[in-house]
């Protein structure tokens, strides 16, 4: 840590443990990596490697050809260095021995990795009641609880398995919410996606446990392009968790994922993310570039989709989980805490597109910036001409923890219907000295006081997270901000 620079502002907190990225280990595991670069042959290779049917190859090729016509978007409030898309390897799989049937057959090193991550892959942890699909370097490694879920008719597997086992379902829904023409990164993902999770909750089923995916980039020089597809049929309910980590590396890694969610009549999907990709070191070297397209279609009447995200990692985050509220009375929610420190940049927010009557949406976004980071909220609330009686409430607050960071808000509000009520509020401020003084007075040291205040500030969002995640998210928040408060 550069003491000279920080000594004045951080005289109390300067001594606090350095903001070490505790997930920054690599796993020495045999990996299949194809040579760097992207062309039609690579797309064909990925498809062939996964033994995909013809229609999926066609889908990939169409996406790839469309991608060639696009240029990376530049509108975000981000300073994105030129990315050489030919310098990335588009497929890296942990080398598997033939078909692991039980836990004993899974590569022990891999289990070790997931243990370090705290993934309940093993028997003892199965008791904690979570079904986990772990994706390492783009390939789904192991899905737990599969059998138990199958009894209820719930499908929870990797998307490549789903392509083989449930081709009709996948074909029907893949690309129906996020088309390959959607944007640059969506086209790229559609061309080269290697794996991801597929969830199908049949009619009337309330998924008894939380489904969870853990993503990890391991191999160097690779990108991760996973794809998640969640379908909740009429009256179904599911809560889905997503966690992300990556090893520490000097070079930048690319992560471009797509999440598609379809919510049918009266169904409810709750999607929670704790994103903690490696954010780069204190000087801003390395870190993951996180360009994600997440969108849910609330197709059925009275359906509900809730996004909750805690964004603490990534060098660059470009992510706008959205809801298309098409069914009558559909509800969209977005709760977000985005923390940036050092040289991190985040441009994140949501889109709420009201096309159905009497649809409602709530947006609560809390941004916390420290160090030299830039943190932007960018969101769209759109009410279509025929969507009568819509309601939106947006609140975005920013907290600034240093004089060198930036906090920005770019809300877009397009109202094309006169019965809509749309409200937007935003505030920006730093932690008040009064609050710190009050805590100090009662014997709480400054660093703890800051933690306390930040946690209180983010509580509204943290409360929306499932129990297991809330604890982790709270810790992450503290780790990310350690040594940054002054």
């Amino acid at each position: 840590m550069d003491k000279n620079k920080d000594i004045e502002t951080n005289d109390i907190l300067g001594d606090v443990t350095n903001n070490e990225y505790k997930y920054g280990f690599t796993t020495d595991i045999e990996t299949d990596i194809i040579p760097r670069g992207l062309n039609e042959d690579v797309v064909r290779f990925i498809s062939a490697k996964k033994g995909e049917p013809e229609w999926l190859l066609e889908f990939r090729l169409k996406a790839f050809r469309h991608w060639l016509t696009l240029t990376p978007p530049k509108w975000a409030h981000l300073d994105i260095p030129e990315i050489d898309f030919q310098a990335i390897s588009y497929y890296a799989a942990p080398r598997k021995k033939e078909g692991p049937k039980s836990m004993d057959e899974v590569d022990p090193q891999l289990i070790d990795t997931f243990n370090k991550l705290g993934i309940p892959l093993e028997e003892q942890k199965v008791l904690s009641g979570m079904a986990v699909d772990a994706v390492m370097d783009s390939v789904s490694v192991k899905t737990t609880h599969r059998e138990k879920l199958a009894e209820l008719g719930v499908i929870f597997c990797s998307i490549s398995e789903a392509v083989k086992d449930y081709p009709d379902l996948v074909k029907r829904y893949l690309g129906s919410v996020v088309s390959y023409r959607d944007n640059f990164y969506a086209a790229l993902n559609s061309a080269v996606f290697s794996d991801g999770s597929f969830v199908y909750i049949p009619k009337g089923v309330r998924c008894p446990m939380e489904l969870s995916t853990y993503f990890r980039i391991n191999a160097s020089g690779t990108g991760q392009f996973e794809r998640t597809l969640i379908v909740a049929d009429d009256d179904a309910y599911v809560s889905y968790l997503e966690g992300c980590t990556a090893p520490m590396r000097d070079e930048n890694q690319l992560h471009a994922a797509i999440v598609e969610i379809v919510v049918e009549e009266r169904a409810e999907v709750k999607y929670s993310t704790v994103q903690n990709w490696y954010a780069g070191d204190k000087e801003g070297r390395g870190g993951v570039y996180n360009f994600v397209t997440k969108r849910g279609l609330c197709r059925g009447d009275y359906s509900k989709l809730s996004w909750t995200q805690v964004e603490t990692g990534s060098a660059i985050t470009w992510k706008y989980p959205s809801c298309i509220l098409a069914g009558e009375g559909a509800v969209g929610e977005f709760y977000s805490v985005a923390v940036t420190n050092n040289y991190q940049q985040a441009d994140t927010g949501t889109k709420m597109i009201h096309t159905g009557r009497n649809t409602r949406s709530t947006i609560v976004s809390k941004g916390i910036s420290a160090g030299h980071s830039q943190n932007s909220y960018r969101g769209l609330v759109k009410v279509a001409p025929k969507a009568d009686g819509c309601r939106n409430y947006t609140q975005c607050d920013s907290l600034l923890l240093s004089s060198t960071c930036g906090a920005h808000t770019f809300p877009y509000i397009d109202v094309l219907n006169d019965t809509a009520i749309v409200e937007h509020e935003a505030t920006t401020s730093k932690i008040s000295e009064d609050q710190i003084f009050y805590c100090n007075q009662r014997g709480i040291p400054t660093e703890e006081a800051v933690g306390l205040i930040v946690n209180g500030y983010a509580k509204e969002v943290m409360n929306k997270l499932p129990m297991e995640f809330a604890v982790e998210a709270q810790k992450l928040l503290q780790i990310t901000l350690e040594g940054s408060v002054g």
Partner: protein
Amino acid sequence: MNSLKQYIELYLENRATVDENSAAPLNKLRAEALEVLERAQLPDSSCEDFEHTSINDMFAPDYGVNISRVNIPVDVASSFKCGVPNMSTLLGITVNDSFRSTSTLQGKLTDGALFMSLRAAAREKAELVERYYGSVAPLSNASVALNTLLAQDGALIYVPRGVQLSKPLQLVNIFSSPAPLAAFRRLLIVLEDDAAAQLLVCDHTQDSATDYLSSQVVEVVAGRNSSLEIIDIEESSSRTSRYSQMFVRQHDGSNVRINGTTLYGGITRNDYHIDVSGAHCSTTLNGMAICSASQHTDNHTRINHLSQHCHSTQMFKYVLDDDSKGVFSGSILVAPGASFTEAYQSNRNILASTDARMHTKPQLEIYNDDVKCSHGATTGQLDAEALFYMRTRGITEHEARTMLMQAFMTDVIDSVHIDGLSDRLRHLVELRFKGGPDALCGDCAASCRGESVVKQ
């Protein structure tokens, strides 16, 4: 399609005439402007800041430009009916882009203050105009460059050090032409240290059957501890397009209050670009728009806080009827080092009909931690309960709606600090609400033809 081309061609063909009918300090910048324009394009809807209002399309039709300064006759009395009772002003009139002094103005300004034609000033006080002309509006902006290329006249307001004008100035812009006409106007306002001035600007058209295009660049320099209030009211016709860009530079301790009101118009786009470069400044930027038929009003604000201890507030309110469209995009930037900034922004809109649309984009860009900033935006409709309450008291629906809308605009109207003007504005707004879409400014005869006309 690049609509700049026709204007560049026009200039190249008539270079000598343009220069001849203007003055040296204005001509001096034309070469540089031309250079910029040859590489540039007017912004269209593919540009983030012009998503809903394409300047390129606005300038595309074939308008005439009065470069040889033919003296187009204008019946001032019939267009200008918006004298303000209980308010005595020093009046200047701009017909299209040429400034005409009036009897109320001549000889009234003392202490070296100037309110005159920019062209005349550029000839008589070349040094002064040269010093400030083009010093605030950046030529790198294509629309500013186009205005600079073709602007031949406009108005100059100059208030020397320590002079505080006792009477408000009033500038009336009137469009008058037998054929479609584009006017490129400049307004240069310079307040030296400790000076104070108030200015009322209103836009009118002689008739509502001709297409007009108004390109206006306003440059404001507010010296140390100066105080300036500008009220800009647009009451033109539905066939008028207006692109007004105001650039303000505030020095230490200055206080600038701006109010931009759009009552009648076709396509209106107003840019307010305020650089608060001095410390301890205060900035108030308010505005309202009442739109009906297919009116289109786009206000774009940008306040750059570059220094410490400054305070700014923005409040914009819209009422949109029929299939009109409102756009508001406001941004506040707090630069690194601009500590103790307080900046607030609010945008409230009422959609009064099913086809009305509102696009709003309030933005904050903060690069400093010791600030208090907030913005809020709402879009909705009149409170049903309030309407019901009034109906139960025997007030007709139309009356009740008008009263509520009038009340909605009250805080913008009350922020005007010129005696008599806020009452007048309240009256104009009331007429606007009551008059329906066809009532043009000419119908607001109340002040000059007695109180008899247009009361429904």
